[in-house]
């Protein structure tokens, strides 16, 4: 537990020299049993994501599938309802339920539904937009969008102890360790 007189921390941030270093560090932190951990890099590093996310698969595929199905049913349903139930019209001698023609709009709706679900789902799951975030309090963090690699152990982690964590991070090759304040 963090001692009272210290300021309330969001966590500790370690800067690491390279992508490789970040990966190794992440692995070590995970091995050490820290779970409330996040890593920051200017480009995606699969290994790091895997470790940080504790090898859980992303939920995105399910969301996208749901969106797609919704689009498909919605689209085809609308066509059927409009052309067969609501206002059936003899058009060029074709049957009211001209399903071959209905396939195309339904198909497009499927893709539209899936894509919308994907993008907005991703933003939602990632808790974006969040223009304000504690990590931005660390001036050095701006490098994260250029060439900086960072690892954060959050204070809410059960094992979190400021001094212990600090020394641990320094131990695993952090070039520097910062306090991340709320």
């Amino acid at each position, binding site marked *: 537990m963090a001692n009272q007189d210290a300021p309330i921390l969001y966590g500790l941030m370690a800067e690491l020299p390279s992508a490789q270093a970040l990966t190794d560090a992440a692995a070590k932190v995970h091995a050490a049993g820290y779970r409330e951990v996040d890593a920051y890099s200017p480009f995606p590093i699969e290994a790091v994501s895997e470790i940080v996310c504790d090898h859980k698969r992303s939920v995105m595929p399910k969301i996208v599938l749901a969106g797609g199905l919704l689009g498909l049913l919605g689209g085809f349903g609308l066509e059927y309802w409009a052309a067969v139930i609501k*206002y059936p*019209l003899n058009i060029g001698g074709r049957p009211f339920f001209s399903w071959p023609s209905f396939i195309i709009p339904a198909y497009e709706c499927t893709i539209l539904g899936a894509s919308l679900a994907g993008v907005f789902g991703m933003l939602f799951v990632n808790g974006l*937009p*969040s*223009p*304000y975030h504690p990590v*931005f*309090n660390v*001036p050095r*963090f*701006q490098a994260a969008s250029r060439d900086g690699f960072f690892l954060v152990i959050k204070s809410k982690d059960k094992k979190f102890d400021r001094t212990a964590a600090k020394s641990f991070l320094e131990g695993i090759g952090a070039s520097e360790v910062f306090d991340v304040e709320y």
Partner: protein
Amino acid sequence: MAQLFSRSANTIAKASIYGGAVVAAALGWLVVEAIPRSSYATGKTVVYKQPVPFSHDHHTAGLGIDCRYCHTSVEESAFAGIPPVSTCMNCHKNIWTNAELLEPIRESYRTGVPVQWRRINDLPDFVYFNHSIHVAKGVSCYTCHGPINEMPLVYQHATLQMEWCLSCHRNPEQFVRPRDQVFNWDYEPEGSQEAVGAKLVQEYQIQKLENCSTCHR
């Protein structure tokens, strides 16, 4: 770098997204649903000033004059017919002969310059409605014009929108009456309208005409 945004930014950002969605939905509802069906757009129930404040309430409900006394061609023509001033004068030669209200009528009768009434139930020029066939198939005045017999000043009873026409053209049984009851303001169906209607639809061979050229040509 220092924080670019304040803490509140997060809430604002999220709110603006959800808020935006709500506003868009509201606008959509207004444009698609509310405004087109408003009396502003349809003219429904709006009362207009007429050269003479003719009261159907007085003449029909009060004096019990039959619709066809004035609207002579309603049974044989597309146009129900607006009575010529001479029709008014049939009675008003003798009664209310110097009522101030009726001066425009008398003047018209003298000068031969017709009275110009404000049209109330007005369809677009590309819609062709025929009174005679509706009357012949048991559609009452009331069905479209509402309680016009009790209107001191005539107003539009229905929206006169296509969906409204279709509602009856698709389910005539919910509206038709026996032919002899078409002009009867106190008509009550014997039994449920559905039952009576269904029978009449059979009897009068009422078609459910939904195709475009029924009204548009």
